[in-house]
């Protein structure tokens, strides 16, 4: 697909501004009402979902040149998809897809962001989205005696992901995951040094070719090793394997589970029994790529029905965020004795982004942390002592923001809290 392929969607934009706010039916007060970090920070309409598709049209009509401001607009979006969900409450049109395509077009035409180029160079040379990483990819598992799925066949593969592998602060989550899977008696393996980046964040940054190369290599390895199920604790990896690989026709029959889905299943099957009390009041942050963007990809092929309503034969179902992964992480938290889960105002399909997505964490750290600060304030307002999430990128960004703003809020991954209870 290309930006041109979304012209008919973009022509439907009514400039109603609904993309800037949480779904109106769910608004509970004057704040927090906003759902899009980019328009909330930069205020000009071009930074909103609607504004982005408007200037996408302008680009197709050759009205625009690449200016510094245009590139600032293109790259200062976390690709969190909140605008897409809010719009699709009312409209049958794609919003996030043309935003992706606009960024991909910019990259293909050589208008890249230097900070993102650095990340992609790291991906190309070292297979990681964490440039300058000193650790080796499999080092976190040293001494754990885990199976290497490339050498020993295992039904389940635990894909750790770039950030958790290369950031030593994140190793605790990987080790907690291993601990839980072992306790549940799961036969699983890891890739270790053979694990490679899912490519999802490269796609978010606009580097579609790099993403496809990563996806093809990964799927070739999975097929070669007879992998049936991939479990990951990273929301970006989850979205890449489950949604993007499927979108590009590469996923095949691979079952993709987020660790929270898998743990929820193991708890409900009685294979994990949280018994220890974890006396803590927490609030849960829905990672964008697990929540609203984590629903299955919907393939469609057909034609538009002539007439005055935009309808298709066969009917075309849009991804609206309805079937994202919202309950499994909450159910895992609810299963922990003593733990009290309280909700923030913006949750599930209209959750506020952590700020780390879409390359913003790398290209504009100030904006990334500003976005995280908003969420931290929202979490604090619930009276929770900890903010729990299910993605290492969210965790890292929240921790960085907390360090800078001096909040006393703690940040945990769902996995860490469950481990405390087992």
């Amino acid at each position, binding site marked *: 697909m290309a930006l041109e392929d979304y012209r008919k969607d973009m022509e439907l*934009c009514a400039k109603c501004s609904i993309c800037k706010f949480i779904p109106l039916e769910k608004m509970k*007060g004057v704040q927090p009402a906003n759902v899009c970090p980019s328009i909330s920070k930069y205020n000009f309409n071009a930074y909103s979902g*609607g504004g982005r598709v408007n200037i996408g*049209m*302008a680009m197709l009509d050759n009205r625009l040149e690449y200016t510094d401001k245009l590139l600032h607009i293109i790259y200062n979006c976390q690709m969190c998809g909140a605008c897409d969900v809010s719009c699709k409450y*009312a409209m049958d049109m794609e919003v996030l897809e043309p935003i992706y395509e606009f960024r991909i077009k910019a990259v293909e035409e050589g208008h890249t962001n230097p900070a993102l180029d650095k990340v992609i160079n790291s991906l190309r040379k070292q297979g990681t989205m964490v440039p300058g990483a000193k650790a080796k990819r499999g080092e976190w598992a040293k001494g754990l005696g885990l199976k290497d799925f490339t050498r020993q066949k295992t039904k389940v593969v635990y894909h750790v992901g770039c950030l958790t592998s290369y950031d030593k602060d994140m190793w605790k989550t990987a080790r907690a995951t291993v601990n839980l899977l072992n306790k549940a008696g799961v036969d699983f393996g890891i890739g270790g040094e053979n694990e490679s980046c899912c490519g999802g964040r490269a796609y978010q940054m606009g580097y579609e070719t790099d993403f496809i190369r990563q996806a093809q290599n990964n799927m070739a390895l999975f097929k070669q090793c007879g992998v049936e199920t991939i479990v990951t604790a990273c929301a970006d990896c989850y979205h890449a394997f489950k949604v993007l690989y499927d979108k590009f026709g590469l996923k095949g029959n691979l079952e993709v589970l987020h660790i929270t889905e898998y743990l929820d299943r193991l708890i409900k099957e009685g294979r994990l029994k949280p018994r220890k009390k974890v006396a803590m009041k927490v609030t849960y942050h829905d990672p964008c790529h697990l929540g609203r963007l984590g629903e299955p990809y919907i393939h469609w092929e057909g034609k538009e029905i002539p007439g*005055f309503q935009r309808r298709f034969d066969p009917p075309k179902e849009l991804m609206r965020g309805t079937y994202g992964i919202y309950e499994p992480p909450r159910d895992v938290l609810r299963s922990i004795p003593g733990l009290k889960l309280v909700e923030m105002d913006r949750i599930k399909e209209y959750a506020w982004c952590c700020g780390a997505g879409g390359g913003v964490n790398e290209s504009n750290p100030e904006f990334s942390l500003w976005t995280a600060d908003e969420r931290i304030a929202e979490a604090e307002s619930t009276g929770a002592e900890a903010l729990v999430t299910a993605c290492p990128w969210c965790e890292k960004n929240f921790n960085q923001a907390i360090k800078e703003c001096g909040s006393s809020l703690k940040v945990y991954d769902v996995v860490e809290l469950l481990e405390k209870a087992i």
Partner: protein
Amino acid sequence: MALDKDIYRAFEDVVGPDNISDDPAILDSYSYRWGPQTETFGQRFAAITLPKDTAEVQAIVRLCNKYGIQFKASSTGWGSMSNPGGPEVIKMDLRRMDRIIEINEKNMYAVVEPYVISVQLQAELMKRGLNCNIIGAGGNCSAHPYAAHYGGGHMGESTSLRERNILAVEWVTPEGEIVKLGSLGSLGEWFCGDGPGPSLRGITVGHAAPCGGIGVFTKAATKIYHWAGPPIFPIEGVSPQYAPSEIPPNFFYRYYSFPSAKEMVEAQRRIGESEIAFEVMGFNIAMLASNMGTSNDEDYAYFEQFRKLIQGPGFQVILMGNSPQDFEYKKQVLEQIIRETKGESLKPVEDPKIAGALIWRSIRITASIRECFRAGGAFSAALGGTHPYGEEVAYMEAVSKLKKDLIKKGILRDDDGYYLTWPHEHGHLGHAEILIQFRQTPESIDAIMGFSEAAMKMAIDNRYGVPHSLSGMAPDMHDMFGPHASNYNVWQRRLKQAFDPNEVSDSSGYIKGKQQQGVS
């Protein structure tokens, strides 16, 4: 047209470098247009500014006077009235002015800045047992009572309309003076628009809001109303599958159709007279289907189902009881009125799950975008005014014939040609509109333009009053209607000339200081 560098710098000094831009990408996100347009992009603004408060608005206005540049201020900027009227217009996007200044429960008013949207205000009010009017365009529009070209909405029966809810106002005039109207001007309080203190409400509002034509209304107080429902409506589910877990106590929803407009009008008049309804909204079934359907496919299926089940034109009613006894009384009165006017309930929407969703959607007003834009993105309308209800319906019955002709020709979506109607303040005044959905082609755009002109001519020839379509859209049309309505255009122009001698407040949505040649 680009601003001279020194002039740009002068504006930049007011708002700061992060809050002004003349980059084409920024400008084009404001010049994109929806609706029956031959070109997707209209005139670009010379620059976009983002003032944060009244002082910055005032400074921008004064610079516009100094340099002879026009300005156009807007809130969410949905309507065409927020577009520039020429090449040398700078935009004031009031997005950063988004505070609720005060909610006064005792005196029942709220003071807002322009970028507070209606659902924000409503949500805060409901926590306090209060509610506000929301314009029919939707809860995503500004809560500021000057922000729309017409301020009626679904809850007009119990919350009136914007033009009548305006209380005290802070106004930056086109010459850059800050004027405080009503009680704000004498007591520094917001409770009244007409005094003690200077009352210019008639002048500043006129037939409808001035749509950017006479300065910037930076803060305004609006009347608020009683709400007997829960502080937070019990909506469950994930978008767009929202529905309440249960209909809160003392709420009731029905959609009734009637053998003809005559019976429908009589039923609405009697419901108003008995003061029983919280909301009476004359959705046609196409709009009802859009409210219910979460996609065009569902919308289509509901419409095809409903068109076989109705007798003729209809409306939906929401009752809200203050007590079980009050609720029971209202229900009984409603049932009697419907029985005596030969109304029939549309059975599928009696289902509590559907009725509950429709109650909330029609109070929060979230589905107007679906009703107008989802089908194919292109929508237009002919609007009545705010007149005796029977007159409004008679006008729409007449316009409906024009619409049906276009449907027969295959130019519009076939929704059986119905219009929509709603009464105001339990009284005999009301409003009516007719929506049309079409596909953008040169042929359809010509036909839509012809339809609009014919509807306007019909309003003049048959004395249906001044339609709200005029406000915010076509300044020269006031000169067409004025001679048939007490020459109001002459007075409106004099006000424009008096308050805006340099004509810096872009009048493309109001009336121009100079009369256009050839228009009498």
